[in-house]
């Protein structure tokens, strides 16, 4: 059987899910290219992290989205367990604030029936208040979708890639695709800053930049523009919290915002939806206007919000918006071998596993007619544990093996030195060359609690410096240009310093 070389561009949740599924087959050599220093540093790191039930997409308008979201939801139930990604499935309430909004809710009930979403039904005010005691008691009712979940989304792409690499995928961070070579109507490979990489199949999962990659393959009928979403996150001890995922029935004017309790137990509210120009693909800045909007709309859903001084973070993410919101998931006859998974906006997180199966089953095997057989020895598991969740006997066992597990470095989130060293080892073995503070944050949640790293960031930077043999100041947040410091403390007085960063 002839082997095929597959290059996947972009290690977001979409690309990472794709390589994980591709790693299940015997005939494929899979290369995952990512321009950042690590997986999951793009769109996939800043979002609402909801595993949607799949009743918000109209199968007439967006058939693929409707289908893949429902299937993706089912797949995540299994994937989060296999990969050790913290997740929960508390269900979702689409709240009808006024009586009139119940009609809108009914419309989504119909979509739920059409899309085959289990368990969705309307609940009246009384039942609603039982399902969610902290809901604003004056609302009319809600649409209840019990299959909705929340996960620790920043952890997802790194976990997926780690598992894929354990199954033979090769991960190349700091590798930016700059061109695609096509000959006789077939893809031949990609040009990158690190040189040329041959390929029989190229899959574009470049998120916000998927229009640019597609253009490199000559497919330029669409653009992807950023749509910003801003959030507030509260401290884990801020009350009131919510049990369910809350949002309001969409209106022509706004979809409102979500109120959830995220995986680290903090209330989170947002996002906004602000369309930005096509070239603003790095503008993840928050704005006063955006945050005010979030506050105003979140208030309508709950009895009250925690006080503002319990906010520990504000942030924004950018949705990769394709024209009309329609995902572009296609294989082409010309150039043969090029596959788009482009413009994957919400619910892209939910759907990523299903997108991956769709690409392998429908596009690679059927459309491109490539015969694939499943490996007999594929390993679905990535072992992960959180020290603080273990029973004391297990904690003691770990400490006995390695006393670093007895050193709590991040006090807000109770993350130990042992876990950080373990994560660094995992990062190295999956192919990450530059171990960054953000990489550790995404995988452990350290530095993201009450004090936002003001206490523990330096301690974690010291561990990275020690484990990777670089000077402390060279440890970076996310790679080149984001170093922790500019040199030793006398660097400016010597007169030659500080320029390293300015290059």
């Amino acid at each position: 059987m002839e082997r095929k070389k597959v290059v996947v561009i972009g290690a977001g949740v979409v690309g990472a899910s794709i390589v994980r599924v591709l790693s299940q087959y015997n005939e494929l050599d899979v290369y995952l290219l990512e321009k950042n220093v690590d997986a999951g540093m793009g769109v996939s790191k800043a979002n609402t992290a909801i595993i949607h039930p799949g009743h918000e997409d109209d199968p007439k308008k967006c058939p693929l989205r409707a289908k893949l979201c429902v299937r993706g939801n089912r797949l995540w139930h299994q994937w989060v367990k296999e990969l050790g990604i913290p997740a929960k499935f508390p269900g979702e309430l689409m709240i009808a604030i006024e009586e009139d909004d119940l009609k809108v809710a009914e419309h989504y009930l119909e979509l739920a029936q059409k899309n085959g979403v289990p368990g969705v039904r309307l609940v009246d005010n009384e039942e609603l208040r039982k399902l969610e005691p902290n809901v604003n008691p004056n609302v009319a009712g809600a649409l209840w979708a019990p299959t909705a979940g929340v996960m620790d989304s920043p952890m997802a792409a790194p976990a997926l890639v780690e598992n894929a690499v354990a199954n033979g995928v090769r991960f190349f961070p700091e590798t930016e695709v700059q061109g695609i070579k096509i000959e006789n109507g077939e893809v031949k490979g990609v040009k990158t800053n690190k040189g040329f990489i041959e390929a029989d199949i190229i899959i574009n999962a470049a998120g916000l930049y998927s229009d640019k990659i597609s253009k490199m393959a000559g497919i330029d009928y669409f653009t992807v523009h950023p749509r910003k979403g801003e959030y507030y996150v509260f401290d884990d001890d801020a009350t009131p919290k919510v049990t369910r995922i809350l949002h309001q029935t969409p209106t022509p004017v706004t979809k409102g915002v979500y109120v959830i309790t995220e995986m680290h137990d903090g209330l989170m509210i947002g996002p906004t939806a602000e369309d930005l120009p096509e070239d603003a693909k790095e503008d993840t800045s928050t704005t006063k206007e955006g945050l005010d909007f979030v506050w105003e709309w979140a208030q309508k859903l709950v009895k009250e919000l925690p006080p503002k001084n319990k906010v520990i973070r504000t942030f924004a993410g950018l949705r990769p918006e394709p024209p009309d919101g329609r995902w572009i998931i296609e294989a082409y006859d010309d150039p043969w071998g090029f596959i788009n998974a482009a413009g994957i906006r919400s619910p892209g997180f939910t759907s990523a596993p299903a997108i991956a199966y769709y690409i392998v089953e429908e596009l690679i095997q059927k459309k491109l007619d490539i015969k694939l057989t499943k490996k007999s020895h594929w390993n679905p598991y990535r072992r992960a544990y959180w020290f603080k969740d273990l029973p004391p006997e297990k904690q003691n066992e770990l400490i006995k093996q390695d006393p670093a597990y007895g050193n709590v470095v991040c006090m807000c989130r109770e993350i130990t030195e042992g876990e950080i060293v373990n994560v660094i080892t995992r990062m190295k073995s999956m192919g990450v060359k530059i171990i960054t503070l953000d990489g550790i944050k995404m995988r452990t949640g350290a530095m993201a609690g009450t004090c936002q790293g003001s206490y523990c960031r330096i301690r974690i930077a010291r561990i990275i410096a020690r484990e990777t043999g670089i000077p402390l100041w060279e440890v970076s947040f996310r790679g080149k240009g984001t170093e922790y410091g500019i040199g030793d403390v006398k660097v400016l007085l010597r007169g030659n310093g500080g320029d390293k960063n300015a290059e």
Partner: protein
Amino acid sequence: MQNDYDVVVIGGGPAGLAAAIRARELGLRVLLLENRETLGGIPLQCIHPGFGLHYFKEDLTGTEFIYRFIYKFLDMEIEHYTGAHVVSIEPFSDLEKRLRVVTSKGVLDITTTTVIYTTGARERHLFEIGITGHRPAGVYTAGEAQTMMDIDGIMPGKEIVIVGSGDVGLIMARRFALEGAHVKAVIEIMSYPGGLTRNVVQCLQDFGIPLYLSHAVTRIEGTTKVEKVILTKVDENLRPVPGTEKEIECDTVVIAAGLVPYLKVLERAGVIIDPATKGPVVNEHLETSIPGIFVAGNALVINDLVDYVVEQGELAAESAYLYIQNKGIPTKKWRKLVKGRNIRLIVPHYLSGDNDVIIYARVQKPEENVKLHFPEINKEIKLPFVKPAEMIRIKLRKEDITKAKDKITMEVVLNE
């Protein structure tokens, strides 16, 4: 069955060390737990003078000051763990507290009669002071920057903007200037500097560092590394004045926006918190709402002077002793200390009248030629000025306290 210890001190900064030393002097069985790898707390990283003027009647650097305590503590061979993290405190009964502690020797379950909580404070960060914009590399809290420079010997950046003009912000401005950085501005939202006048002169004016009063940083720009900050003027209500935006280019932003007592574990145990101090509600023995749990130092109230911190630590140890002798703080008629005009916060919250008590307080706004007035007990103390940056420390005599029936108000009034 006897508890493992009479007193467990949580936190090995100046408050904790002073408490442990005093408790041992009183003959108690003491254990001290410190989360960091080293004892000493914040003063370890303070290489500037200004420590110990009251306690030692000497002007010491933070490091010199704290080493006096560390050496004494080690000489007394007081049992302690560094790298220890208290996960939970369970107030099983008034005479038994159960602690779970993670250490490199294993997970310890410890029982003790009393706890002295001296975990210090955490720094307020970017997201708590309403700054929007990007989240690039190059934003530090003052304490983090100080640790980088004076514990680890690395330089955060070269073009610096400092947010907040409290003593911490002022001292860090000078610290950066001394290492050859260009400190472009210290920005203060209030109309007056947050720190001591002495520090404004010695840390800013002597180095030509501009101070922007009544200005707030509203935004940080820069997608990978800090490129600039946007600031605006604010009005009397601290609201931004439209049209007054200004940019300052820089590569580093240092947030020196104040401290908050760090009480996660204690809050989970159920102590009642005073929203004004953000520390626990305490009586004159520095006992919290959970009998046998005492608190001192920045975990109680944010102090400007380490001398007061040490004083509180020692008092907490004496209180633990009293508690152990009497199997509890004897029941008293407690008089509540109440905030009056221009008082922002005050500790302790309850007074018995059996002891002279040191009161710590902060005002809301600066005023000159004033007196502290206690209407219920007919007492007045004249002061040339009061300002929020300077904690007021005064002693109330027990004879005065007993004059009040159930509350004593403290207010600032203008001298006629």
